């Protein structure tokens, strides 16, 4: 069944790039701010719902794709300034409690505003059909997701590796205090990175909308796979995030197809194996 195999691979790839968009924010936020942001899945959910409403209001998917991440990024900036900023010098456990609280808060807010049912999000007209590739019928929207995700990966890579802002972010991930000492306004960079990560999470949510629909618990269900990607790839590493997402995307999709009775186990087995063999993750800096 090579056609089936191919279709599965593309499914895994589209899931993988969604995970990538989500995990980039998570890994940068962890690398720089030292915060395990449990509410990161909430940004994904907020992105999907913001997309839903923006599509309904404007009738234009592309406009929603542009605006929803900005909305979520703004929410992220608010969270950082109002809640996280006072906590940087406290114990990490306080951040766990805070971001856990935000999960409850955002999930219930969404239920309040949009109701608890699953809401489907229509794909843009341009990609509403399906195409036949190598004998496999693929929804064309999935191909768009893959292409979009890979382009975003390239843009992110250029941003982080080739621009001044990227250099500051990398320096911050390496040693935030020292970067501040060199005259960079590190607080502003912290807010930017958190908001940027939130916006990417939101973007991931809008893009995922037509595939997964929008429902209140979507943030909680995507959080753990995204955390796994970050750990498998290596904390704070963009490259790790990309490779980790693609590996976990394929593992999850092929697990579902080949081992339906233990499919959910696979990504945890992958993660535990990576951690035991290479605790710092595939592309992480070696642990002290």
């Amino acid at each position, binding site marked *: 069944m090579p056609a089936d195999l191919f279709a599965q691979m593309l499914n895994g790839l589209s899931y993988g790039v969604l995970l990538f968009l989500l995990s980039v924010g998570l890994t940068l936020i962890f690398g720089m701010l030292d915060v395990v942001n449990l509410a990161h899945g909430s940004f994904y959910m907020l992105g999907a719902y913001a997309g839903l409403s923006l599509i309904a209001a404007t009738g234009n998917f592309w406009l929603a794709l542009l605006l929803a991440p900005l909305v979520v990024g703004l929410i992220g900036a608010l969270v950082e300034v109002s809640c996280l900023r006072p906590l940087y010098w406290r114990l990490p456990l306080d951040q766990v409690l805070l971001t856990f*609280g935000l999960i409850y808060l955002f999930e219930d807010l969404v239920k309040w505003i949009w109701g608890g049912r699953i809401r489907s999000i229509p794909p843009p007209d341009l990609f509403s059909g399906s195409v036949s590739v190598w004998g496999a019928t693929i929804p064309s929207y999935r191909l768009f997701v893959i292409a979009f995700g890979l382009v975003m990966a390239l843009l992110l890579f250029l941003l982080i590796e080739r621009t001044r802002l990227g250099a500051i972010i990398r320096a911050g991930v390496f040693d935030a205090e020292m970067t501040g000492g060199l005259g960079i306004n590190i607080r502003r960079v912290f807010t930017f990175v958190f908001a940027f990560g939130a916006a990417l999470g939101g973007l991931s949510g809008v893009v995922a909308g037509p595939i997964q629909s929008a429902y209140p618990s979507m943030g909680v269900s995507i959080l753990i796979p995204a955390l796994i990607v970050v750990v498998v790839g290596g904390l704070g590493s963009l490259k790790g995030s990309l490779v980790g997402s693609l590996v976990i995307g394929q593992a999850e999709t092929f697990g579902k197809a080949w081992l339906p009775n233990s499919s959910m186990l696979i990504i945890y087995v992958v993660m535990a194996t990576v951690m035991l063999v290479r605790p710092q993750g595939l592309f992480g800096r070696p642990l002290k």
Partner: protein
Amino acid sequence: MTIRLLAFAAVVVALALFPLTAGNYPVKLLQEILIWGIFAMSLDLLMGYAGMVSFGHSAFFGIGGYVAALALDKSPGLLSALVLPALAAGLAALVIGFFSIRVSGVYFIMLTLAFSQMFYAYTFQVGWLGAEDGLVGIPRPAVPGWDVSSLRGFHGYLLTLVALSALVLWRIVRSPFGHVLRGIHENEARMETVGYAVDRYKLLAFVIAGVFAGLAGSLYAQFNGSITPDAFFWKTSGEALLMVIIGGTGTLGGAMLGAAAFILLQSLVSTYTERWMLILGVTFVLLVLFAPGGIVGALRGRVGLRA
């Protein structure tokens, strides 16, 4: 020391008399708090004393629950209700701990999370454990000379076990072993240099915490008469973590208070409004921002956590 013991005895007596004055619902709520209290205390031994923040403590809670369900179905005695679940959870903790203590910090969090989620995934999909629906119709154990099948009968049985567990845990954290754990929390490298086999202490702490979590899980299964894969889910670990933090880490009593605060808040708010999750979430956020150190920290009237 004696004052503390007297206070402890007074609290136990008060809790034992509670069913005489209260209706069924408050008694049920109290029992739930006591069960989650043991679970939270066992986690506090790890986080608050040894400094090992585990996000996979639900693994042992779930194992305790499932083993109790299977064993009580075969023979409803105390062996099935208490000994086997605690042993199984301790054994699992030995294996999981052996691998997990090699890493620390956020890696430890993630590895323990992964192990517990494996159990979740397995029980969620496997037929002989009832898959998604879990195991139902778990009988209460036959305790010689004690009818624990009724709500009030169960209360004495539960309270005895909770009080004993609290005493044992309290004794453990006050023992030389407990002090070594605190030393590891403060400065692992120094303890290593001084000559303590740090890894062995951490593993033992992990196993002890697992045993008590297993006991809590077993009591939870007996209390509800059922157990589902949700017992293994990461939110179970997360909620225990919240209870410990809300109560104040490194204070066993705080873990129990945290469990009480969490469950009371959840059930009280949810009877008045559908928006209980929102209120719970806002409460956590405000608690972190304005009452660091949890309930015990606030009671002590100072800011910052004690090791």
